[in-house]
């Protein structure tokens, strides 16, 4: 299986083609076309252990809401976007270009502080729709697609739970 991995950290951006060749006993790794001495296993839930040329790395993986991953090892943090070269679109890309009627969900419990759109407004993919405040932090909830705001369930000042439907974009 081949993956195109786009990484971002304080060190900058980078791109790697990782080819994982799994068989019954092991997983061979080709990094950017070159075979590398790497042993990789899932050590614990969301914790991948990599032995790379004998160096030990434990990498924690947390999926983000937009389909990217946050990876953490020691003091370092990375953001990764993975594209399957065989697929039409990357994960993030597909999330932005969602089709059909989309429900806008609250990603965390909090309070609706502002509505940025009205019912019937035309919105672009990625445009802010609603601002939800959780523990003094304001988060803009964005539209997953270009379209029209069909319904707005949220009202300003209303407390919401994670996963609660805030709006529909058609």
């Amino acid at each position, binding site marked *: 299986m081949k993956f195109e991995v786009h*990484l971002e950290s*304080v060190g900058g951006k980078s791109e790697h083609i990782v080819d994982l060749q799994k068989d019954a006993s092991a997983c061979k790794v080709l990094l950017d076309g070159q075979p590398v001495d*790497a042993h990789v296993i899932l050590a614990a*839930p969301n914790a991948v252990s990599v032995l790379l040329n004998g160096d030990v790395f434990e990498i924690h993986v947390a999926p983000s809401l937009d389909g990217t991953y946050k990876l953490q*090892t020691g003091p*370092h943090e990375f953001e990764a976007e*993975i594209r*399957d070269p065989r697929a039409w679109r990357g994960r993030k890309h597909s999330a932005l270009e969602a089709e059909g009627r989309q429900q806008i969900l609250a990603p965390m419990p909090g309070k609706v502080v502002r509505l940025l759109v009205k019912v019937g407004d035309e919105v672009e993919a990625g445009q802010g729709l609603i601002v939800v405040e959780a523990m003094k*932090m304001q988060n803009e909830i964005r539209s997953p697609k270009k379209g029209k705001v069909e319904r707005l369930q949220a009202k300003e000042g209303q407390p919401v739970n994670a996963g609660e439907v805030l709006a529909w974009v058609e």
Partner: protein
Amino acid sequence: MFRKILIANRGEIAVRILRACHELGIPTVCVFSEVDRTALHIRLADEAYLIGPAPSRESYLRIDKLIDVARRSGCDAIHPGYGFLAENPALPRACTDAGITFIGPSAETMEVMGSKTAGKQLARRADVPTVPGTDEPIENPAEVQSLAQSMGYPVLLKAVAGGGGKGMRVVSNDEAFASCWRDASSEALNAFGDARLFLEKYLDAPRHIEIQIFADAHGRAVSLGERECSVQRRHQKVIEEAPSTVMTPELRRSMGEAAVRLARAGGYVNAGTVEFLVDANLNFYFLEVNTRLQVEHPVTELVTGLDLVKLQIAIAAGHRLPFAWETITPRGHAMEVRIYAEDPDNNFFPCPGKIVARRIATGPGIRLDEGVYRGWTVPVEYDPLLSKLIAWGNSREETIARLRRALDEYTISGIRTNVGLFRRILAEPEFLHGEIHTRWLDHLLARPRPPAIPPRSCTEQAVAIAAAYWESLQPGNSSTGSQVPQSAPSRWKHEGRREQLDRQP
């Protein structure tokens, strides 16, 4: 001893208290709000009862519900922990009315010692030095301003009912007085429903050193030594340690004696903390009394070898304090860091969420007090304290080395934490030399952050491999992969094909 204890709290402190109860063989009753059904204290308790919706005003702060649960479940004592109702005299009063023992000082003591003004008056009577300032809450800003002028700037305006740095303003000159007064009193009114302020001299670069006291109901009061909590961010403690780097046996004795005098003067019973500010010349000034168990109590536990929660329970049950503790001297060095779910890159905003992965720090000299676990979602409604990581060592250097090592082991994913802040503090030369004061951390954070060390290229490669590997394990990808070994064909399929072929004409 008690039959059953109700723990009127949540989070790590509820877990800490129930552990002490279980060691004593006392069954525990815990309470929870609607969002805390899965909290660790509920998983570990013997009995648990729902007391209301998420907002603490409707659950953890409801004295009537707590008393009702205690009665129905047959509890004969209530431990309040810290925060919530721990310093609210209404709880011990309600306990007394219900015939339940409150594990802590009496309502009267709380009123006399817990309020900053009353505490200061008591300190004066007990001959404990105080910071120059007003004893009485002040009403008239003009009068205060002239007092501030005579005292000399900078001065501090503090809410009478304050705590946690709210309703507090430093006034550096006469021009700023009016606006600071307005801000502090409105903040105090919003936070505590009490706009009254008092004024005191602002000490330059003082240390925060506090004395842990214990007093039994038989007239014995002792000091268990000091904790230094000078590393603070906006008046909130961030790192605590014992002993203090500036402490001498003489200073420890005189501060301990002052704290015990104060406890006696206030008729104090149970655990308490007397906070002092210590200036560069090692003069100490009484700040306030915390009439409860402190967040940082494990630091004292590690250097004294005592279990403060069990002591609290024993004293509440009417036991005497053993004699030998009056001569207690700290053994080794202990240091605590408070790990919060907050984002250091975003002005330390709380950022709760689901803990998707974690690695726990353990090993020699490490203690981890926490109320979290993998898979749990940190609720938004409460204080985002995740863990208290406490290290003990023979020397301060060894303690810091252990703490650093443990911070490298401690990982928690899915939420952001302030662990990076501790890595930075524990490498600062000033901190390592003990050259700290209550505004040291604020100054440090105001300086430009040293550029983050970029990951090495092998780290980056390992992360790329890990990301691809993780992706390959996702459900959508398992079918496209060659996970089913080709070397083990299905005999059933093979037989089926053979039969099909045989059927051909």
